[in-house]
């Protein structure tokens, strides 16, 4: 994947990602159905294509930029614990969770939707 340094934040939180994906699916399918009916009535398949592409444009404007509505549920990270070493800080979550399982606020509400 390309790593482009955008001059502004492009991040969406997990709920925002789910909402954005559902939104563009609904919009594109809606315009696809409208276009199919219009193309059938006009007997012109290019109308269907144009309708779908218009829906893609609308949903691209709505979902590709990280609008603030997709950033309302930021991930609550754990406080950095100063007992672990700096080198294996990323790996420390499993060991630290075994030490203090009641402080793991990241896992329960988010589920398996990341990436």
């Amino acid at each position, binding site marked *: 994947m390309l790593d482009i340094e955008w001059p502004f934040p492009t991040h969406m939180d997990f709920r925002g990602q789910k909402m954005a994906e559902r939104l563009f699916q609904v919009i594109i399918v809606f315009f696809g159905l409208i276009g199919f009916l219009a193309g*059938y009535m006009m007997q012109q398949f290019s109308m269907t294509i144009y309708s779908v592409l218009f829906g893609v444009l609308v949903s691209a404007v709505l979902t*590709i930029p*990280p609008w603030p509505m997709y950033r309302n549920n930021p991930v609550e990270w754990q406080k950095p614990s100063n007992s672990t070493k700096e080198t294996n800080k990323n790996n420390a979550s499993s060991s630290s969770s075994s030490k203090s399982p009641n402080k793991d606020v990241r896992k329960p509400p988010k589920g398996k939707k990341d990436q």
Partner: protein
Amino acid sequence: MHSFLSRLNTLFAFTISVLAVLTIGVFISTYFEKYHETVSIGVNKPIVKHMTDYSANRKKNDLGVLQLNLDMNLNQLFDWNVKVLFLYLIAEYVTPTNSLNQVVLWDKIIRRGENARIYLHDIATKYYFWDDGENLRSNNVTLSLAWNIIPNAGRLLHVPANGSTSFIFSDQYTTSRAASPKSSS
């Protein structure tokens, strides 16, 4: 979905999927279409000449020369799954060696949006009517039209048109060069 490019990628992939489903829908909606149409074919002044076929075996073969009258309205064939219509006119006849001889005398490509009302009067054939021998004299020839439907999605249909015409070539060779507007060179 977390970054710009991954959202763009997901959107693009979903768009392609939707377009594929719609295209399959177009195919299904026209699957039972028959694309039949009636045409009228006429023949004018059929003559037979005996000439050297330089394009093939350089022997003296029979060459049929005739003029065509075509009248048809194929606008009804263009539904939303027809991209191109390819018309071709076949001459069929029987010789002692071959039970079926087919020669394409004329064809035409009609794209979507072009006028499919065809009225042609006394046109020369587009391709030479060469026999591969000397069997055209006093032979019965049937002219029929057929078309291929080139679809947006689906299969390439081959549809014979309703309506054909038959004629009999004369039993004499025509020799004058003045009577041959398309003498081979």
